[in-house]
């Protein structure tokens, strides 16, 4: 038998799958693990979404954003935003000094909510990689 013939025969032998009596059980185990992975992922995403939503809504409600937006203080808000922008540009040019920024609790909570969402996304990716 030539080398080529033997290698062709070997390819054929490798291509023939062996018979396993528990082939169906194996397939079900894989399906179960797939379902479990998807359930966990949905759970993570759902929990993170709820947490971020609750944080965001509570902060918006607590800040009375809608009322203030309609009132006389709208101008003050604009001024505050302008002040924040000025501080940010100054910070960018002179070095970041967080204490000097006009950041209040709402901004921090919103940042935390975004952080939770980012963490949920990271966990989802890690779960996928695992």
């Amino acid at each position, binding site marked *: *038998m030539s080398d080529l013939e*033997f*290698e062709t*025969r*070997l*390819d054929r*032998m*490798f*291509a023939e*799958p*062996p*018979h*396993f009596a528990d*082939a*169906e059980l*194996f*397939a079900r*185990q*894989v*399906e179960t*693990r*797939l*379902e479990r*992975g*998807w359930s966990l992922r949905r759970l993570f995403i759902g929990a993170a979404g709820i947490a971020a939503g609750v944080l965001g809504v509570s902060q918006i409600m607590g800040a009375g954003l809608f009322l203030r937006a309609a009132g006389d203080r709208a101008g003050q808000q604009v001024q505050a935003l302008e002040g924040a922008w000025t501080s940010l540009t100054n910070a960018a040019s002179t070095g970041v000094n967080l204490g000097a920024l006009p950041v209040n609790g709402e901004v921090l909570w919103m940042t935390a909510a975004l952080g939770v969402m980012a963490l949920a996304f990271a966990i989802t990716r890690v779960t*996928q*990689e695992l």
Partner: protein
Amino acid sequence: MTQSGSVAGLHDVELAALSAAGDRRAFGELVRRHGSAVRGLLRRMGAQAALADDLAQDAFLTAFERIADFRGEGTFAAWVKRIAARLYVRRWRKDSRMTEEVETNDQGHGGEASTVSRIDLDEAMKSLSEQERLCVSLCYGAGLSHAEAAETLNAPLGTVKSHVKRGLDKLRLRLAPAEGPRGEAERQGHV
């Protein structure tokens, strides 16, 4: 979601496309079709039954995550076999290192070929050293080129080639039908 009965008649590429859209039943059908081939390859590579099954499951889960990468250029079986083979090599490399010192293993198995004239591939693979078995399995079972196998094993190309060569020589000896070792002995006896 596709009904379980309707996926059985679909081609692998169609099932892969459905799987890429999140259809886990379609992927389950792919596992049913190719699970045994992947498990068999891992056992031929040298994995114990339990480890082979665990790694085969991991390979299919990995394949599901990366199913969008499968573009139907080769067969799905070959693609998932490559994933499984690489997973096994990664596991194997944790425990041992590819070395040139295979001669001791070679000597331990070499004499068996003369006592058996015809055995199947699974048995024949057991006569190979660990490194030879890996290299032959990667190249002929998982369809990797010598260069790809060398990269997967993180071993020099020449080393992989020599392992494949020696492995093939042993397999040829053990798998040869009538003209195997017994046949050669018979021929020598006639002469």
